[in-house]
């Protein structure tokens, strides 16, 4: 099975210059790969570094050491050392991301927030909006909200907009940071269906799911992040 993303020996720490430069190690020796058509889940308690790993894979956090090799277009790219411009191209074409919280933009409607990633990939705006409508309907977001900017939506409504935005494209790699945290049972099931459809389409998924039932339903493999705790390697 193809492995579109390989992480090897990645380490990350935060240096807090405002706190006398203390160094907070987050993870080290992170090595794993994810496979097309599978959903890999990062497991471990809060604070183990799961979100930090996802953010490094998306280029949102800098990487101290190691490599993140991703298959992008016809070549391989090391995201840990890629230029901002390359990271942007990878985000547009190769790696999608559903963050924990939606960052809202003033005055842009929910429908356009969802359609935007497709438009950025060159899709016609009206076709993108059509797909956005279908996804929002599938996620049971009331139609009267579609034309409104999501800033005033409830947490669960915002999260569904965020999920639709992440799932609308055909990125070969999809990162999911607790996409079901504030959803009810019905919508959790919709997300499980959406993930199954992505797997069937050959997408490589990597996610964090605190919800036990969702994790059981989607995970093909669980990676225990506590194995990457800094200090473990020194032994």
């Amino acid at each position, binding site marked *: 099975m193809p492995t579109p993303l390989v992480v090897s020996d990645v380490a990350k720490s935060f240096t807090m*210059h405002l706190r006398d430069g203390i160094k907070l190690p987050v993870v080290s020796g992170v090595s794993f790969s994810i496979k097309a058509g599978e959903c890999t889940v990062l497991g471990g308690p809060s604070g183990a570094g799961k979100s930090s790993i996802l*953010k490094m894979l998306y280029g*949102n956090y800098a990487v101290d050491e190691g490599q993140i090799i991703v298959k992008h277009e016809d070549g391989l790219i090391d995201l840990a050392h890629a230029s901002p411009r390359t*990271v942007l191209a990878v985000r547009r074409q190769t790696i999608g991301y559903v963050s924990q919280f939606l960052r809202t933009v*003033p005055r842009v409607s929910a429908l356009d927030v969802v359609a935007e990633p497709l438009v950025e990939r060159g899709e016609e705006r009206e076709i993108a909006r059509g797909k956005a409508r279908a996804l929002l309907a599938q996620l049971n977001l009331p139609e009267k909200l579609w034309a409104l900017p999501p800033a005033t939506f409830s947490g669960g409504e915002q999260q569904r907009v965020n999920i639709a935005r992440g799932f609308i494209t055909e990125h070969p790699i999809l990162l999911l940071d607790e996409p079901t945290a504030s959803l009810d049972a019905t919508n959790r099931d919709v997300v499980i269906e959406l993930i199954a459809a992505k797997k069937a389409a050959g997408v490589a998924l990597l996610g964090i799911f605190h919800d036990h039932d969702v994790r059981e339903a989607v995970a093909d493999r669980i990676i225990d992040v506590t194995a990457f705790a800094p200090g473990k390697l020194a032994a």
Partner: protein
Amino acid sequence: MTDEPLLRVSALSKFYGSRVGCDNVSFDLWPGEVLAVVGESGSGKTTLLNCLSTRLLPSSGTASYRMRDGQFRELYRMSEAERRFLMRTDWGFVHQNPADGLRMTVSAGANVGERLMAVGDRHYGKIRATAVDWLSRVEIEEDRIDDEPRAFSGGMRQRLQIARNLVTGPRLVFMDEPTGGLDVSVQARLLDLLRGLVTDLGLAAIVVTHDLAVARLLSQRMMVMKDGRVVESGLTDRVLDDPRAPYTQLLVSSILQV
């Protein structure tokens, strides 16, 4: 997307006597990219912007710009006339204070039309129609076209300044604190408008701001300046979510939460 940058800046420095304006700044800017330059007052960001837009000449360093014919030209070796022509046709400059970028005593329509005439348009009807179109794109009602900007609110003036700058289809726009001095609801409207125009027109832009929220909303890439030097640069969300330089950490931690 083209494989060549639109602007290449290398080791640009500007000294005012012994004082540092900006020191050894280098970067490339590609078409369609928005670069935010952030830092507090006196950090050199406006000096940098003025050097790049050739309103100031640097003490040392180079900046080359890819002209429409695909050839790179060294900005500081062009003649004054060539630079003025570039400024009128291929570039825009949005000032913090609209009065600096507008002619306050001619009508709104003339403010937009004047730029068109500068690039050779002569047909009155066409110029007026384009002006009306641009005023509506920046959400100014058609019946205000014959009013002078003196009679406009601050937000309207700023939108008019943007229309005046974008009407000639520039490829690169410089913006100096484009939302400074506007109240927040007006700011949100302007930001949304700018964001849409930049995406639709595929503009490259260099935006100087001290407001990190503005930078996050408008830009993909960011440079953080302190005492004339670039202390950190990278993807905007990376710089803001994982700031590495001590000064960037201080800036990010100083944002007031609403």
